[in-house]
């Protein structure tokens, strides 16, 4: 295993002793809601820096109360889609399908071999290019990709397909990590992905679910020139 890859994996693991930046953020949100009187109480509830050692539970590491992914922002979400694994794997494996449900991805172009170029829409009409290589491909089970050196974003992701219990279809679990570089691009990537990582991720998987289960993606616009999504 390459050293940087090892380091990356290490970051993805649960770190019981790290600062829970996320917990703090939630506490602040709650404080804002309950008003000034209650804020003092919530702000006192700082995450513990040194948590007693506990036996691991069954939950995925990314749901830990105190977690860190090093420099990476992580987007993850699981959704159950009432379609067979083979169909969902096949749809995702053709990366050119991704822009159908990923709002920020404008196009995916195959280059040579296992490399594809993703064109991601940036602010004020600026596009960002990311070239990714498939690093693991287990038919009907898992696809993992990573950006090649020199891409505008250092990112890796994987999507896993599992049979859902009781004939409910397939559990699709997607985890994507980004390292925002410096500079202007870095700033807006940080804005999109670190501010609301969960929102972006879940919206995309929900769109995929709609497309697979109903053949279309719901919109409440009722004419073509209207604003999108009724927002």
């Amino acid at each position, binding site marked *: 295993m390459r050293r940087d890859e090892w380091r990356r994996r290490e970051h993805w693991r649960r770190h019981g002793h790290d600062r829970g930046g996320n917990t703090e953020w939630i506490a602040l949100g709650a404080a804002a809601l309950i008003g000034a009187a209650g804020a003092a109480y919530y702000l006192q509830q700082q995450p513990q820096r040194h948590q007693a050692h506990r036996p691991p539970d069954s939950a995925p590491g990314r749901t830990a109360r105190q977690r860190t992914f090093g420099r990476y922002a992580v987007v993850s979400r699981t959704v159950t889609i009432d379609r067979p694994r083979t169909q969902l794997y096949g749809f995702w494996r053709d990366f050119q399908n991704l822009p159908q449900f990923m709002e920020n991805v404008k196009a995916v172009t195959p280059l040579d071999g296992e490399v594809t170029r993703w064109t991601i829409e940036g602010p004020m009409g600026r596009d960002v290019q990311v070239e990714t290589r498939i690093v693991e491909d287990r038919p009907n089970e898992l696809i993992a990709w990573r950006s090649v050196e020199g891409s505008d974003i250092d990112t890796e992701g994987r999507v896993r397909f599992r049979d859902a219990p009781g004939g409910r279809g397939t559990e699709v679990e997607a985890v994507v990590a980004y390292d925002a570089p410096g500079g202007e691009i870095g700033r807006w990537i940080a804005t999109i992905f670190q501010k609301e990582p969960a929102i972006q991720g879940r919206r995309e998987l929900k769109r995929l*679910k709609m497309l697979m289960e109903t053949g279309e993606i719901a919109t409440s616009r009722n004419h*073509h020139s209207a604003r999108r999504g*009724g927002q």
Partner: protein
Amino acid sequence: MRALTWHGSHDVRVDTVPDPEIMNPRDAIIEVTSTAICGSDLHLYDGVIPGMMSGDILGHEFMGRVVETGPKSTLQKGQRVVVPFTISCGSCFFCKKHLYSACDNSNPVENQDITEGLYGHAVSALFGYSHLTGGYPGGQAEYVRVPFSDIGPIVVPDGMDDDQVLFLSDILPTGWMAAVNADIEEGDTVAVWGCGPVGLFAVQSALLMGAARVIAIDHYPNRLALARKLGADVIDYKQTHVLEALMEMSGGLGPDAVIDAVGMESHGFAPDTVLDNIKQTVGFGADSGHALREALMAVRKGGRVSIPGVYGGFLDKFPTGALMEKGLQVKTGQTHVQHYISELLKRIEDGEIDTTFLISHRLPLEEAPKGYYNFKNNQDDWTKVVLKTGKS
């Protein structure tokens, strides 16, 4: 086209807006012939439901003719249809279980974030309601875009009047499901709070399902008279102590099942209501829950609680003790209209159910604001307002 649009609390207007277009393959466009104002619309009118935007087209009870179809619609131009107020895909986990109002795929993803935070899960979409439930333009208009038109709309024979079938879109199935959720058994006494359209249809349905006795509660003489006509006994909560009366009228046992057909804007002068109203006015996301609290106190031990009345936020002083210690069973939800609609159409065709008794006023669409005003402020006489577009 002309449409009734929302501009703020107690400010609705008929405006000229762009005609709807087919957006998705399963869509159809309906030319509306009749559309009604619902008690749920009053929550929007009063501004107690969050997520409304100026210019939103209201209306979720409507019917009309198919004028355009998307490539995957199963409807045909010219067909006359009643459209369920719940927008459902028909193929997700929930729709397959016939829990249509829990559909996962009808609420646009951008609109799901708020209820995912507020309720733990995103809710499905409804026509002409808040952006929390999709922000779909509604049916108090000349034309409506109907998504998933192969699942929702039911074709009605030309021989039947609009007024006979319009309420299949919401309040008839809602009253019916309210009674279904009360799990009525032979000999049951069922108490219904609220004699608005939903409460009255719940009274009618409970009697059809074999309740020995239905007791309807309200304070409007005319609405109570309608309940009595349907076969209910009535309690006027302004002249009678409801809890005491219900105990005495049910042999000291308490009603076997209770139905809250009032919802989040419960009236009354009890201290809980006054506090709830203050919180609602200052925008606390609080529900007024006097009727629900009273229903939970009244129902017998091991009894059933059915809640068709709409709640959107939080309720304090909720009697969890009564709920647990009496071993109650609670069923609620937006109506799974698609599950009940064909059975109810059949009952109307067979003459078993009449819905026209409810309509007190028919107005042209242009006079919709007057309809809202009176349905809100003159509830006793204005039991149900149907708006006509002049099309047929």
